């Protein structure tokens, strides 16, 4: 620039382009400027801490029955009361956090892993490969997630592992569709053509170019799906499928407490609040992430 005179100082300068801000700092700034996103992030953090520290912070054993103090109202000793077997509700909720978090992470990993690969392949190879994969996904989409995971869990049998698998499978279609859409858009870019020209292999193009460039929307979807998976697990355990008693799961606790609704409503209410808070928080963080990464994703995810 030929212009470097007395005018070129901090307070009085003419710049040609807006100042560069680091992408990470920008995202952080956009997200932290909205209180709901900060709130969500704090709750998610609390969930993770609670899940890992459950054995140390829970005041009572979540599993061992204490028949001398059954169905107690909330008191100083039992902040949220006790259930029909005399177990401390707060302790069970704290231990339930671990169940929820685990189901969320593993189910989303299963769904993401399979869905992303399918979407990548479908979008990249196009034509009949795309047609076959996407029509299968269409067919899967026609079966609502909850009935689908119900059926799968029923056939696999109960247990937490099978719940994770069934919830994971029911979430595959969204990843596949998102990934396929992303690939179809990115595939047209010049740098992909360039990669073809220099003779990069299909696998290399998919893994080195297409996957990393689809990362922002995938990250948003993963965050949002954590909440959805946790809600799905709660629903399944409410219906009596999944975790084997006496272990604590929030959905099952709501269901167990339902019988004592008239006398001890807190048995049902408290674990439901936990589910809602956690799902809401993941959604808020996901929304915040989406708006910060790329507001145009609104409506797509």
């Amino acid at each position, binding site marked *: 620039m030929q212009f470097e005179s007395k005018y070129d100082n901090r307070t009085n300068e003419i710049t040609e382009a807006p100042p560069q801000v680091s992408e990470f700092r920008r995202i952080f700034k956009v997200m932290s400027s909205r209180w*709901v996103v900060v709130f969500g992030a704090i709750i998610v953090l609390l969930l993770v801490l609670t899940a890992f520290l459950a054995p140390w912070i829970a005041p009572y054993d979540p599993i061992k029955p204490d028949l001398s103090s059954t169905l107690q109202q909330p008191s100083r000793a039992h902040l949220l009361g006790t259930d029909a077997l005399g177990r401390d509700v707060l302790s069970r909720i704290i231990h339930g956090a671990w169940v929820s978090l685990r189901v969320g992470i593993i189910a989303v990993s299963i769904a993401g892993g399979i869905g992303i690969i399918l979407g990548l392949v479908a979008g990249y190879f196009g034509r009949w490969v795309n047609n076959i994969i996407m*029509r*299968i996904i*269409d*067919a*899967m*989409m*026609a*079966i*609502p*997630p*909850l*009935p*689908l995971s*119900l*059926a*799968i*869990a*029923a*056939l*696999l049998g109960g247990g937490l592992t099978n719940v994770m698998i069934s919830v994971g499978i029911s979430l595959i279609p969204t990843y596949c569709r998102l990934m396929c859409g992303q690939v179809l858009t990115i595939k047209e870019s010049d740098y992909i053509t360039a990669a073809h020209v220099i003779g990069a292999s299909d696998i290399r193009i998919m893994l080195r170019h297409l996957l990393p460039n689809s990362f922002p929307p995938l990250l948003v979807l993963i965050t949002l799906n954590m*909440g959805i998976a946790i*809600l799905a697990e*709660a*629903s399944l355990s*409410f*219906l*009596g*499928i999944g975790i084997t008693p006496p272990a604590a799961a929030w*959905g099952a606790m*709501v*269901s167990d407490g*339902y019988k004592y*609704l*008239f006398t001890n*409503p807190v048995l*049902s*209410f408290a674990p*439901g609040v936990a*589910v*809602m808070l956690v*799902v*809401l928080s993941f*959604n*808020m963080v996901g*929304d915040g992430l989406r708006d910060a990464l790329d507001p145009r994703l*609104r*409506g797509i995810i």
Partner: protein
Amino acid sequence: MGTYIVRRVLLSIVVLLLITIITFLLLHIMPGDPAAIMLGIDAGPEQIEALRKELWLDRPLVVQYGHWLSNAIQGDLGKSVLYDEDVTGFITARLPVTMHLSLMALVLSAVLGVGAGIICAIRRGRILDSVITLAANIGVAIPIFWLGILGIYSLGLKLGWLPLQGYTSPFDDFWLSTSKAIMPVICLAIPSLALLARQTRSSMLEVVRQDYIRTAWAKGLKERVIVLKHALKNALIPVVTLLGIQLRILVGGSVLVEKVFNVPGMGRLLVDSVLGKDFIMVQACILVIALLVLLANLLVDISYGWLDPRVRYG
């Protein structure tokens, strides 16, 4: 428009075929012998063998599928292991109940959801927008089985305004039916209402930024005309896509709501069959649900053409 509809219908038929394959495989791809699982541990080998024969489980998979499909087309979805009765009869009895509640919930969520979304978009950044947006975010996250229990406790047990549980057909007793339906319908509607409100809001905000809305302002039109005539029709295009997903959410939700409110519908039937390991019934329920969702999606695709002339004349 004609070719567009034909293409959609053909595509739906392909997907329908795939759905039948998936539902068929659901039962057969799983580890273990379905017959043995269905009969439980008390069953002797002869009993299991008999059931295997009855269900054609001893034939090759392709033959089994063909047999099952041709029966299904004729309306025979097999025999329930649990009740020892035709599955089709069960479903035709339960389906109207679920449809009744789901359709009411669909109308409720469409009207209120789209309305709330428009209000938010117009009042963007004001208090009303923040309140509705927060409510919608909570609505998406709320476990509806818990919401139902909350409703039973407050409106039913404490205030005594509404019946606690159960279902009555509107043809038998309209008022009783409606009063019993209020809570289940609200619970069913909340998640899709919230989703629709969010989608309408962001879609409206997107449309409002478009050049043709600026043109509309430059023409001197009133805000009401711009919102309702120029913006809404464009904004509804992505929202209508979501309506196809709505039925998925509603049917999924009916599994939970029917359990909470003790409603004898498809969802309840599915849960009971899953818990009772009545796989033939599970298979049939899934097939019927998928068929309904597919039909709804087809209707949505066609109404798309009505909304978007680019599709109609595409």
